[in-house]
């Protein structure tokens, strides 16, 4: 058993011991340079503002993919198997498990750029409707606000509802004024629609949002801080053709000015094509004990409970991961002889994972999954001796 950390500092360090890899300058430049439409581009970086939208950002796709895999798998399809492991007799074979064989492990590691290219591309979506007549001022009602940041220190987002009987659209950016007793009225400048929003028809009863930004830090005042500044509690939103909409009860300060967006709706989430690999259920066969510094030799049984075969083309990539730091690995499956897993069939694959000599003795957990969205994850345990 590991020694129990006795102090809060020790407990925090233990909690933080699983850390992510640092962000490198190259990764930051790459993220800045890529546009979302060019998910696999790995060319030289360039300065300047990239085009972005709410889809998966390429440089983060690897991280997000793993997060989705682990989050979904743990909740849905974790399978435990702690049976003893016996290495297959004889030399490597490529016979199928149906014949009692094990598909041998092959050392085909996968780069993060290849993983990025394997992430599914969203299906084409229907263009949003933008053909409704302009909204009348009286048909848009103010329904409330939420803070952006703690204590509204980044501003607020205000919700409006279309109370009219027909769809409408509001393309113009409303004029916004902030007021406080004894203070000068502050007029907002204009912000663009955020990358995750769009100006579309507002159906009857539908909602739209408008952000009012009042950041506590900016280039002119990078350190930020809003001590001593007057607090504005009221905003007036002017929509042409009617009386201003008034929002009270606010706590806004303007050391960096104020700006507001047009009315926007959130973009619908992307839809991805079906992934046949989600039908394959992995199970782990692990040894009871493995020495630190040696190779964990184990097996994965891939079962297909469905009534149709699952093609292994393109050859899938798998992810294996253990609770020992720096044992997160991605490889190609050995598709040399097995090109599909038949309906109600299964294949057994040999796996290897090098354990660092620094691995702590004790119970260790291993996760294994085929790379892709919503693919099941197998989980097992062994002892580091």
């Amino acid at each position: 058993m590991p020694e129990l950390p006795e102090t809060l500092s020790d407990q925090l360090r233990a909690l933080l011991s699983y850390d992510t890899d640092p962000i490198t300058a190259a990764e930051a430049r790459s993220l800045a340079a890529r546009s979302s439409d060019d998910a696999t581009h790995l060319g030289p970086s360039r300065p300047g503002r990239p085009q972005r939208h709410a889809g998966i950002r390429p440089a983060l796709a690897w991280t997000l993919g793993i997060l989705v895999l682990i989050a979904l798998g743990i909740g849905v399809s974790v399978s435990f198997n702690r049976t003893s492991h016996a290495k297959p007799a004889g030399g490597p074979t490529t016979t199928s498990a149906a014949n009692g064989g094990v598909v041998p492990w092959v050392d085909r590691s996968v780069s993060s750029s290849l993983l990025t290219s394997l992430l599914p591309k969203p299906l084409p979506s229907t263009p949003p409707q933008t053909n409704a007549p302009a909204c009348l001022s009286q048909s848009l009602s103010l329904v409330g606000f939420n803070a952006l940041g703690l204590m509204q220190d980044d501003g607020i987002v205000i919700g409006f509802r279309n109370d009219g009987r027909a769809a409408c659209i509001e393309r113009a950016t409303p004029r916004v004024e902030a007021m406080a007793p004894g203070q000068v009225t502050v007029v907002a400048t204009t912000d663009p629609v955020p990358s995750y929003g769009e100006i579309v028809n507002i159906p009857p009863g539908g909602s739209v949002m408008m952000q009012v930004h009042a950041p506590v830090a900016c280039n002119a005042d990078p350190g930020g801080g809003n001590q001593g500044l007057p607090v504005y509690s009221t905003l007036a939103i002017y929509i042409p053709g009617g009386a201003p909409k008034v929002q009270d009860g606010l706590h806004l300060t303007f050391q960096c000015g104020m700006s507001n967006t047009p009315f926007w709706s959130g973009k619908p989430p992307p839809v991805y094509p079906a992934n046949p690999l989600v039908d394959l259920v992995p199970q782990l066969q692990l040894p009871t004990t493995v020495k630190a510094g040696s190779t964990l030799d184990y097996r994965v049984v891939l079962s297909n409970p469905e009534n149709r075969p699952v093609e292994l083309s393109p050859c899938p990539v798998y992810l294996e991961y253990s609770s020992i730091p720096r044992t997160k690995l991605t490889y190609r499956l050995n598709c040399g002889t097995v090109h599909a897993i038949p309906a109600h069939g299964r294949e057994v694959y040999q796996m290897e994972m090098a354990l660092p000599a620094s691995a702590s003795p004790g119970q260790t957990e291993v996760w294994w999954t085929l790379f892709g969205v919503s693919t099941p994850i197998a989980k097992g345990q062994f002892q580091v001796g």
Partner: protein
Amino acid sequence: LAHSEDREEDFEAFVTKVEPGLRHAFRASYGVDRGRDATAEALAYAWEHWSRVCQLANPSGYLYRVGRSKTRVRRFQPFFERPVDRDIWVEPGLPEALASLPMRQRVAVFLVHGYDTPVKEVAAILGVREATVHTHLRRGLATLRKSLNVERTHLRNEGITELEDQKGQENA
């Protein structure tokens, strides 16, 4: 070309300097994966606006706000997921107790007591005074003690020497 290379070298050095603090702060704010996303977004922003960012007196504080702004789309979702399975030997209630802290208190506790970050640096990242960080620490630790039902919590900076479980004492 030489200018471009200089620019990239400067940015490399900048990232080496500010990335750990930012990543730790964002991890405390949003959890491991979203925290990494926010760090990447903030540093990408720094590269896009390098000519301005490199002249800032407090770039960490500025980029911390940029990262928070960039993750705004997911602001309304709960964050700070409990680490899975890895930390079973940590006080079981600690992740939830930390997650329940207000963000600035959590960032202060994480950075100072988990990463040994100087209070001055935490103040720069959060854009507040050092005294405010101490306030966040004091309140955060008090909440943690209460959440974990712990009488006293060892903290190097406070000179207290051991963790005492109130229930354990009562049982003894």
